[in-house]
């Protein structure tokens, strides 16, 4: 497309300013992460009773409890423990799971690839459904196509995710046997969970695309484009869509952040070993180091996604970039 080439050229010109902005944003992540880590850490420590009793069992003596407390790093005040935790975190140590006695960092990174796989594929499904559907609905506003698209979005929005998952499993795994009904063996096993999560996300994204496109379709500059002799197709998919992208990207970012935290229902239905199940299982078992560690890692991931979204804004809309690089 015409925009890409000279856009890249334009980037070179004020690239230095953009790097400055990105570095500034990265530095700002540090206090944010420290704060978020503190909140998570504090809640996890306050909410739970003394986990030492749980690990040691009912017959332990006071000395045994004290020794265990030291071993588990539970001695000292909350603040002391927080700074010890952060210190370890900087060394890449998130502690050890109470249950499996495994390194939490390792546990998390075992699950992360699965979550990334599911999240990206689900977002891909969501975008492939919602953006064309939203555009068709907006271009044919108030026609049967619009109504149909909006009904589909409403169904997608109101259908419980696990139920859709079960239906898909029933049809495609049990009846037709095209896909496995669960597990994480090979690429093919991610398809059903990704469609399940993606369809749920597509609903909101369709509505966003539609309303954003409706706003843009009224703009005078599309008439200018038509008067130049630009084809209707190009008017919609190039001139209009580019202007409608900002709200779509915003919702995309929010949804992507959500699925990075894990899609517990879909993961449970399809026995998909993702981060969501790791956290939920850990909560069930009162495995505080695992919960805290996984939540902090997820937060880091989400802040990075937000940063990427903000950077993408700048490339989509030059007016936003002008604000960043001021």
């Amino acid at each position, binding site marked *: 497309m*015409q925009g890409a080439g000279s856009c890249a050229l334009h980037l070179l010109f004020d690239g230095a300013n953009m790097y400055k902005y990105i570095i500034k944003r990265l530095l700002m992540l540090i206090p944010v992460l420290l704060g978020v880590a503190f909140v998570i850490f504090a809640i996890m420590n306050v909410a739970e009773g003394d986990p030492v009793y749980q690990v040691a069992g009912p017959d332990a003596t006071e000395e045994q409890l004290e020794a265990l407390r030291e071993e588990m790093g539970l001695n000292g005040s909350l603040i002391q423990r927080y700074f010890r935790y952060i210190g370890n975190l900087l060394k890449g140590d998130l502690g050890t799971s109470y249950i499996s006695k495994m390194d939490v960092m390792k546990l998390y990174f075992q699950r992360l690839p699965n979550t990334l796989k599911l999240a990206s594929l689900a977002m891909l499904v969501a975008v492939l459904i919602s953006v064309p559907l939203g555009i068709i609905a907006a271009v044919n506003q108030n026609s049967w196509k619009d109504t149909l698209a909006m009904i589909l979005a409403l169904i997608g929005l109101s259908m419980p995710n696990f139920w859709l998952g079960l239906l898909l499993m029933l049809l495609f795994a049990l009846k037709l046997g095209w896909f496995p009904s669960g597990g994480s063996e090979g690429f093919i096993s991610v398809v059903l969970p990704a469609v399940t999560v993606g369809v749920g996300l597509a609903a909101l994204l369709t509505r966003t695309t539609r309303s954003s496109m409706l706003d843009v379709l009224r703009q005078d500059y599309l008439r200018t484009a*038509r*008067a130049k002799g630009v084809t*209707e197709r190009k008017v919609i998919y190039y001139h209009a869509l580019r202007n409608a992208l900002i709200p779509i990207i915003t919702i995309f970012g929010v949804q992507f952040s959500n699925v990075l935290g894990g899609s517990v229902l879909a993961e449970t239905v399809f026995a998909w070993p993702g981060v969501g199940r790791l956290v939920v299982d850990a909560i069930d078992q009162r495995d505080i180091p695992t919960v805290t560690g996984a939540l902090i890692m997820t937060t880091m991931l989400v802040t990075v996604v937000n940063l990427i979204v903000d950077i993408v804004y700048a490339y989509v809309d*030059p007016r936003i970039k002008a604000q960043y690089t001021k």
Partner: protein
Amino acid sequence: MAEEHDILNIEDLKVRFETEDGTVYAVNGVNLRLGYHKTLGLVGETGAGKTTTALAMLRLVPDPPGVVECKRLEIDGQDVRGMSITKLEQVRGKDISMIFQDPMTALNPVFTVGQQIAESIEIHEHLGKAEALEKAGDMLEMVGIPRARANEYPHQFSGGMKQRVVIAIALACNPKLLIADEPTTALDVTIQAQVLELMNELKEKYDTSMIMITHDLGIVAEVCDEVAVMYAGRIVEQGSLEEVFGKTMHPYTEGLFNSLPNIKNRTAKLKPIHGLMPDPTKLPEGCPFAPRCNYATEDCRKAVPELHRASGTHMVACSAYERDKNFMIDRRKR
């Protein structure tokens, strides 16, 4: 083409908008002919149907809700009415192009001005991206903007500069007919004069025929050869600049002249035309101007007056002339 034709030939153009609140009759039977290298001023109040008439020429009236009917719509001898979409896209921007009213909203905010000018060059002259951008730079220089600014976005330009860019887009492919829809309305007075001068210059240079849509009679006097005055979707008076300005016939045209500020007597109150343009969803019976006309009689409210030739090329639609050939409005001497 062997047959003699004009740059523009419209017969009985009607446009209505079918909305939920009723049908808006925007244009109600307009005939227009324009010779090559001529400039026509299309004059009238807001809501007279000037812009809709222009959009209909490019077949850009939004449908729905717009419904366009006409007996003839030819540009440069080509029938626009029955044109395929593909052919229409070749005509738009190449044979006929349009300068829009509000430069603030007429440019796409996410593309550089260079890209936006180059786009029509790419489409119509089948040039590569680099060549088209090069030519877009030439166009920018022609409208008085340094070519280095081709890489900038519309938000980096002032209103007058944006209008220059819009003009550059419209002229990029040397159109045979240029429609300028109130090109100076959104600009402040000093910039207005610059833009008008620029348009006059470019029109001469490229020998373009032009339709200048405006409510400003001063602009008409400066730029146009012919004048058509529109009221409630109809042309009520039409003729050469001298005819319409020198021997004003229609009471509405007279009213327009009377509402101009008097430069010799700066403290004089303006004399506006009383009342408002009729609601286009329910036009009155008879002459639509009758409710506001100082000369209206009972007969005026019975039938819509046809456009009649008065003398030479001078046409007027007023039933007073049908009753009395000598009914002539003396413009108040200033």
